[in-house]
């Protein structure tokens, strides 16, 4: 199996850092943004930003995937 490229893994680590490892930094009520407590707003924000990161990761992977398919051909 081909491993994911380093670039795409680094992009995938961004959402992990932002919403999982850094919880003590953003788990607070104030400042409220758009009427939401800050922790709520922060997690909601990352529901929008995660697809952006992963789209970047996809761009990293696509050239490699095309290369793979060219070599193997389709068994079906």
């Amino acid at each position, binding site marked *: *199996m*081909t*491993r*994911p490229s380093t670039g*795409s*893994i680094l992009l*995938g680590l961004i*959402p*992990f850092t932002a*919403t*999982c*490892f850094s*919880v*003590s930094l953003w*788990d*607070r*009520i104030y400042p*409220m943004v*758009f*009427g*939401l*407590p800050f*922790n*709520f707003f922060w*997690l*909601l924000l*990352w*529901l*929008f930003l*995660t*697809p952006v*990161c*992963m*789209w970047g*990761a*996809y761009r990293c*992977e696509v050239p490699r*995937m095309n290369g793979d398919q060219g070599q193997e051909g389709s*068994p079906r």
Partner: protein
Amino acid sequence: MSPSIIALTITSVIVLIGSLLGFLARFHHKMDLEQWTVAGRGFGLVFVWLLMAGEIYTTFTFLGASGWAYSKGGPVLYVMGYAPLMYVVSFYILPPLWEAGRKHGLQTQADFFHVRYGSKYLAAFVALVGVLCLIPYLQIQVTGLGLIVEVASFGGIHRTLAMIIGVALVAGFVFVSGIRGVAWVSVIKDALLLITVVFIGIAIPRIYFGGVGNMFAALASAKPDHLVMPGSTKNLGHLWYFSTVFMTAFGFYMWPQYFAAAFTAKSAKIIQRNAIIMPLYSITMSFVLFVGFCAVLVLPHLSNGDLALLTLVRKTFPAWFLGIIGGAGALTAMLPAAIQLLAGATLYAKNLFRPIFAPMMTDPQVARLARIMVVVLTLGALLFAIFTSVSLVSLLILGYAGVAQLFPGVMLGLFSKRVTTAGVFAGLAIGISIAALLMLTGHDPCYGLNAGFIALSINFTVTVLVSAVTAVRVSGFEQPSLAVAALTRGNSSRV
């Protein structure tokens, strides 16, 4: 007409339309094992999306998440924390998995272990773990179904009766249409749920407080502690959040039913694109949480937090609307239950019963046994749901901690050449034992950490250490001849 009859009629009509769609999905498709379990690997972006989206909204997220927002407060944010991350994990794991699935004709999670590690005993163990973890998950859907219909009918239909009717329908369309039935019911269920959840998430705070912002402002001044971790609990703090989000993000696609959903796609690209867009779908979760937080101030003395959303809807809206919520909610319970049944039944028949007890069974016989198991598992979950009163959340967390232990075997199996069968066996056995021991003795969270996370860490370490000292066997994915031999008879026609 009395409100209960109006609500009940609407709920029933929605459930019946959904079930009918499930039954009709088999048209033009011969239901052999390949069609029944992975729809002939022919699903495009829309169907894969529907299938996976249909699965994240279970009764737990609908009733349980709003219930946690109500009774626990801040810790419920873990639901929004893991939602995008599990798709990040799936972005890397599912495409190679799909590729292995296509090359070697894999239909279940245990098939993967069977071919990769060349051991039918490891595969049977994985299947056993999968089926055992699925039972509590199934039970949650069944109980949730009972609760929803009971509230929606203003107590007119008893919980037990609702559960029996609901699961009979589910077992019926799974029995007949397999995974295609599930994908089709997703269409109606998702449309209904999305519209109603967004509507009540906006309308309820508006009716009681004039808007979401005002609602949170009122909550922040009345109960500021409720909005941050550990909320209204003592032990669900930041360490717990981190470890739970981490374990859930990695554990999610280890549920046999979600794992197998990857095999239904037409191409690996479809799965990756799906992983990119899915976090957007989780945005709707926040509306469910709005309702739960709103109930804190509006209905301060509920005995069962899981009823917060339904009770608030019943208090706020006319009966016909409660009927729609009831119908959407019932489908939300039935659909995941269907997928869980399908996965559990196939695992049992194909990876546990045939290899260990009856190696001479043909594929059609396995398909028949799987259908019988649908009925058996349905009855099992129904009996559990009727006769036990163990807290649903604790059952789910136990199941999650169990399936998450499969992650090292999957991840290392895909990307490492050094991992050995003995290593995976040892890690999995120890991980499951520790998770079960800590949780069943009430040590979750343990030192602030999620017990499943602790078990997963030890599991991973053991897998790596034992792999380092045992002899490496060539991966079944590298040697196709071994793979064909491993997956027993029947599949040879495909390879």
